[in-house]
């Protein structure tokens, strides 16, 4: 009944839990990094009490959404529901992949957390009062940042965790692990996380999610896949390869001909 801790870790690593944990965790790392930048600006400009309270309230909403939709969706993943969720995953994943590809091709600028912090700081102003004072605007700004960035995390956690009830837990754990990492690093560094390779992660996760969604659509519609579940990996690699090809083509195109 009880496993030794090392054995439990080993089972986790080789089971289907690891992809769910890793996908949700890496995607959450990107989104929470962006939310942290806004929270740092709010904290410095409007007060840390408001920033922490607003961020915390936002997290409660996000957890509520996962609890509300997560377990319910796991029981509905048949036929049309699989096609619908798969389609949303493809739309979401390809949106991330497109943007990341255009950044990799140099058409869009790379995300700069330092610049983003300066922009948000200009927006929220400088705190002329006590750093722990209560500020309604700061609370709402922090709440909004966490909810807006976190909605993508909620979708990924719920979607990745929906094929079977046992996958929701590792997906949630992955997201929580990313959250803890971002909070700890943010507290230690007192600055935005500039070293997180956001674009690379978004490109990778975008390809994985698009591949997963494609597989589910096919599975829900009764299409066949060579290698069954193993096709998911092939699909993810396929989308990633297309992204690399597209970035290469975009870099070579004359400036006026680029989309």
């Amino acid at each position, binding site marked *: 009944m009880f496993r030794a801790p090392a054995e439990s870790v080993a089972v986790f690593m080789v089971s289907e839990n690891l992809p769910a944990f890793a996908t949700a965790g890496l995607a959450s790392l990107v989104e929470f990094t962006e939310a942290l930048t806004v929270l740092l600006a709010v904290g410095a400009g409007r007060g840390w009490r408001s920033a922490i309270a607003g961020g915390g309230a936002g997290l409660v909403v996000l957890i509520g959404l996962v609890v509300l939709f997560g377990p319910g969706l796991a029981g509905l993943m048949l036929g049309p529901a699989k096609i619908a969720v798969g389609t949303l995953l493809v739309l979401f994943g*390809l949106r991330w*992949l497109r943007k990341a590809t255009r950044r990799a091709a140099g058409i869009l600028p790379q995300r700069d957390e330092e610049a983003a912090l300066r922009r948000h700081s200009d927006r929220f102003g400088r705190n002329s009062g006590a750093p722990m004072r209560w500020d309604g605007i700061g609370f709402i700004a922090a709440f909004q940042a966490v909810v807006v960035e976190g909605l993508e995390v909620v979708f990924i956690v719920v979607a990745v965790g929906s094929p079977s009830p046992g996958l929701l837990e590792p997906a949630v754990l992955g997201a929580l692990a990313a959250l803890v990492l971002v909070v700890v690093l943010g507290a230690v560094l007192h600055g935005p996380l500039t070293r997180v390779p956001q674009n690379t992660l978004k490109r990778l996760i975008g390809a994985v999610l698009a591949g997963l969604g494609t597989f589910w659509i096919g599975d829900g519609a*009764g299409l066949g896949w060579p290698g069954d579940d193993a096709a998911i990996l092939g699909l993810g690699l396929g989308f990633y390869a297309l992204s690399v090809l597209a970035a290469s083509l975009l870099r070579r195109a004359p400036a006026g001909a680029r989309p």
Partner: protein
Amino acid sequence: MSLLRRCASELIGLFVDDGLLAALIVGWVVAGCLLLRQWPGAVWTGPMFFLGLAAIFMFGLVGRRR
């Protein structure tokens, strides 16, 4: 109302940043599934579906100006 509109806009924005592309993807999902399920379980149908999505993805990135 404006808060609801903003929430709806944020939610839609999670999945759609290019309306034409999103429409093509959804259109292919519908058409592809209807067409390819004529051969249920055939191992080539899934990859064929992927190729359609791949074509739309490349078209959206490389094939047109925005």
